[in-house]
């Protein structure tokens, strides 16, 4: 029995391949083959053309922080003990944006900045669900 007490996503038939890709630690998102553009969240058709001509593609897992907040107060008991923490909108190299948390960084506006390069961390929160989180890209 998992000790994870926070709200978990429940995949649906359309989004399941996304969640399966995370579980496999190899994130995939969808691309519209009519326009060549990626999109997120997963849909049953292209939001650009409403076409079925879409496919699942692996992505690099790298991106930049597009926007962020530091959460200092959350009345939801599932998160109340975790403050402060960072919620960010990450823009992936493929051009889509998604919500996630930043890890391995001080939850402080002096240490997080817009444009900060980040990479995916696969967080296996239960046996069934892996959440994508992001950490700053370390200098090589």
């Amino acid at each position: 029995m998992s000790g994870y007490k926070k709200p978990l996503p429940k995949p649906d038939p359309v989004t399941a391949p996304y969640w399966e890709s995370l579980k496999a630690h190899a994130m995939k998102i969808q691309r519209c083959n009519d326009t060549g553009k990626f999109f997120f969240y997963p849909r049953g058709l292209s939001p650009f053309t409403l076409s079925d001509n879409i496919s699942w593609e692996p992505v690099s897992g790298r991106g930049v922080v597009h926007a962020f907040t530091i959460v200092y107060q959350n009345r939801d008991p599932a998160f109340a003990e975790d403050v402060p923490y960072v919620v960010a909108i990450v823009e992936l190299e493929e051009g889509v944006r998604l919500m996630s948390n930043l890890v391995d960084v001080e939850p402080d506006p002096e240490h997080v900045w817009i444009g900060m390069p980040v990479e995916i961390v696969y967080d296996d929160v239960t046996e069934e669900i892996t959440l994508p989180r992001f950490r700053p890209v370390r200098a090589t």
Partner: protein
Amino acid sequence: MRALSGKVAIVGVAESDQIGRVPDKPAIMLHAEAARSALAEAGLTKDDVDGLFTAGISTTELGEYLGIQPTVTDNTSVGGSSFVIHVGHAATAIATGRCQVALVTHGESGRSRVGMPPRVTPPDSLRGQFEVPYGLPQPVGAYALACSRHMYEFGTTKEQLAEIAVATRKWAMLNPKAYMRDPITIQDVLNSRPICWPFNLLDCCLVTDAGGAFVMTSLERARDLRRHPIVVLGFGESHTHAMISQMPSYTSFAARQSGKVAFEMAGVTHDDIDLAMIYDSFTYTVLLSLEELGFCGKGEGGAFVSGQRTAPGGDFPMNTNGGGLSYTHPGMYGVFAVIEAVRQLRHDYVDQGIRQVPDASIALVHGTGGVLSSAGTAILARY
């Protein structure tokens, strides 16, 4: 669109009997009290009402509670902007003869949570899958995320955001119905408890219990009613997203569209606006709305609100009831922005010194809903 301009009037407005903290009344009673008082102010009865508009609850529930069977029913429910959007929908319905008297109501027990639905997001919903797992408090965290981007792109500061909270509090100090009436300074805002960076407590709206309602009819009929008619010159609406993670740009939103349409329909310019009621769920909501509505250029919102320009006696009277930040905000606020604009345009406060905007003849009301998701703009005028 111009054919609809100036044909319909708002003829009665009211809050519920009490606002602020009302632990002894369920939300629907707050609707009902406001409806009763707004009709009484207009000199109409519930039997005159044939158009029913509300958000948050179903119009079927509202009609049942009040004993009204409408000819026109409109449950447009896109967040706190809904009631401003209802102004346009009701005006259209009346001007085209689909109904004669429209009643728009709102009521929420936001603080006491009496008779309110539980707040749940199913785990297989899109938000349940793609946002809820990351612990963003809603809606404050969503607006904070968007605001971070404005600060990055345009150098907007927390001090500039605080100007809005301080000026709005000064208006609240003139309003006996306002929930928060103690003076505050910019430093007080910056020193208040951090909630979600860049917002502190005083950047955020209140959570209260309150109801509000207004009544609309044709200008022709309005001339024979009790109060000075306030005509609807123009209106617009739009929306771009439901989840903050899907917002196309964090520094632009549907107000750009709703405002443009409303101004074109009204045939007035920004210089004609004597009073602006701009939905203030958070300080950033106001700053961004002012830019998107065209009162200043892109990125200039911070400079625009500086120097207490929107405070009593300033050259841009805004949120003169004390707004969602200091007067009342039960969860959705749009109806209260309409109510205050009507009272200012009727010169209801003419004996209350600077509380009355001098010679107010045209007002802009702007509602924002969801997480900068939806927008409704209405331009009203003293007939």
